[in-house]
């Protein structure tokens, strides 16, 4: 589907892809890479608090990006935070994708009133901004990582549903589809074996870009104090944590987690854009 040669022909996609891979590896292996465990109360000392970048902590470890108010190493906290951010973004994307596929495919396959109702719901939801829907959901659901994942899944499903429906509608008019219908296969089998595989390709790009988007939304929510709990901070909560210190000049506590967030979101966005052009060269210009 996506040839390696096509990727080599586009150095930007290569670099962005590499960056995305690096970020994912850093998140997965955070406990191995991070110089300290920022949530191990036995090793974190308040005496290390607010060390500037490059400062040496009491146990001799160099804190390359400084420490926060409680004496946690910012670099380690970022690696652990990245993990939380990615877990939330990816699991919410997976849930939203599943719901979106089910809704979009059944709307396209059965058509008629079901299609009208489902797409009307999608339209109504998409007329509200994502951040607002997420905020509302969290106000209704309460706090916790699982709640944030549910809220973000609810934010995203409609977009997937609409995209997959559009793709499936195109497939429905093709000859092979007519052929399968004539074979008297069961509806489920037609949807699962024929409609689904042919309708997913536009979702690959969308899912990539949406992941970046939901990382951003999660960070915003956590920054506002309604996202992930403080016990499992994501990049957003780390930035919020540093907010209290910026007026006293300890910029590193907010700056570095934010820079990491920006790098992650930008890398995924650029990668997604490139992916779109590789999959569909007509959109290139």
């Amino acid at each position, binding site marked *: 589907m996506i040839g390696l040669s096509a990727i080599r022909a586009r150095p930007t996609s290569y670099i962005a892809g590499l960056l995305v891979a690096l970020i994912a590896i850093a998140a997965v292996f955070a406990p191995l890479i991070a110089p300290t465990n920022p949530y191990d109360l036995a090793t974190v000392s308040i005496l290390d608090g607010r060390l500037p970048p490059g400062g040496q902590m009491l146990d001799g470890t160099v804190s390359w990006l400084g420490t926060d108010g409680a004496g946690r190493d910012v670099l380690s906290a970022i690696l652990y935070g990245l993990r939380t951010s990615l877990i939330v973004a990816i699991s919410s994307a997976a849930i939203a994708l599943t719901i979106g596929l089910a809704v979009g495919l059944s709307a396209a396959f059965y058509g008629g009133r079901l299609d009208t109702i489902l797409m009307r719901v999608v339209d109504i939801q998409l007329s509200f901004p994502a*951040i*607002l829907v997420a905020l509302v959901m*969290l106000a*209704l*659901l309460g706090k916790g990582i699982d709640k944030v994942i549910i809220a973000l899944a609810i934010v995203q499903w409609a977009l997937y549903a609409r995209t997959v429906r559009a793709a499936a509608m195109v497939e429905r008019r093709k000859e092979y589809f007519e052929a399968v219908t004539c074979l008297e296969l069961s509806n489920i089998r037609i949807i699962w074996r024929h409609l689904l595989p042919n309708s997913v390709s536009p979702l690959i790009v969308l899912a990539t870009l949406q992941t970046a988007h939901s990382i*951003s939304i999660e960070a915003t929510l956590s920054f506002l104090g309604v996202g992930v709990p403080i016990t499992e901070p994501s990049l957003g909560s780390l930035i919020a944590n540093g907010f209290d210190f910026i007026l006293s000049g300890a910029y590193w506590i*907010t*700056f570095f987690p934010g820079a990491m967030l*920006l790098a992650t979101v*930008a890398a995924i966005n650029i990668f997604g854009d490139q992916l779109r052009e590789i999959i569909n060269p007509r959109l290139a210009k």
Partner: protein
Amino acid sequence: MQSVVVLFVMSLIVFSMINLVGDPVDMLVNPESLPDEIERVRRDFGLDQPVYIQYWKFLTGALSGDLGNSFVFGRPALTLMAERFPATLELAVSALIIAVMIGLPLGVYAGLRPDGLGARFIMGLSVLGISIPTFWLGLMMIILFSVILGWLPVSGRGETAVFLGIESSMFTLDGLKHLAMPATNLALFKIAMVMRLARAGTTEVMAQDFIRFARAKGLSSRRIVRAHLMPNILIPIVTVLGIEFGTLIAFATVTESIFAWPGLGKLVIDAIVNLDRPIVVAYLLFVVALFLVLNLVVDIIYAVLDPRVRLQGDEG
């Protein structure tokens, strides 16, 4: 009609679900209060009643324009929101103006010379503008302009003055200083959007025959851009901005929290954290209503601007 149904369904969902989250009484009373004290507070707010009775009370109240009293402030939710709304509106309007003033020229420029270095740079900036977390940029702005340079105040709305019957901080120097950072921060997302729209519109319009004709007539590029390009690209931009105005109000919650801007968004974030249900419910209904009205207005504007839409409506 559909709008009324949506509003009603939303109120039902919001009201029933919000009652599942936490116990607002815990947030309101002193943790050392005696049990009968807690019971009294619960009774005073009507929280001892079953949810459907609470909802019925709310609904009958809402129909006569009373959305209940805030648990925390003890005043009507609607009054509190009305007090805060001008500040949010001011922020959103300023952000909109900034977005158009910066985004439009850059987008048109990029559209006129799509392969130039400048255009590439501008489009690169717009990718960055979409990726950058706005709230973090707001913090960086505070560090740069307030902490390091000391030019702009960190928080609050500043002095306001009344001009033409409108009270706004746009009319005092102090107010403008307070407004500058939050408005720019809020505008950031929209700048990137206006830029993209303007660029796409420009490349599309510039390829049309009437532009070629205007060129053949010997009009200067400046005149072509002003008289022939601008009116054509402005229609979609204006309509999109109309829809996006609601988004600005929604995003203002974030900006207001960063800069401690005393607007609607700050009110509702505090209310969510404090489990101040009446405020949350009132805000949600307000926002839903706002969006329904905005969508209606945009539909009407479409019909006015583009005769084709009107014709379609007549047929179907």
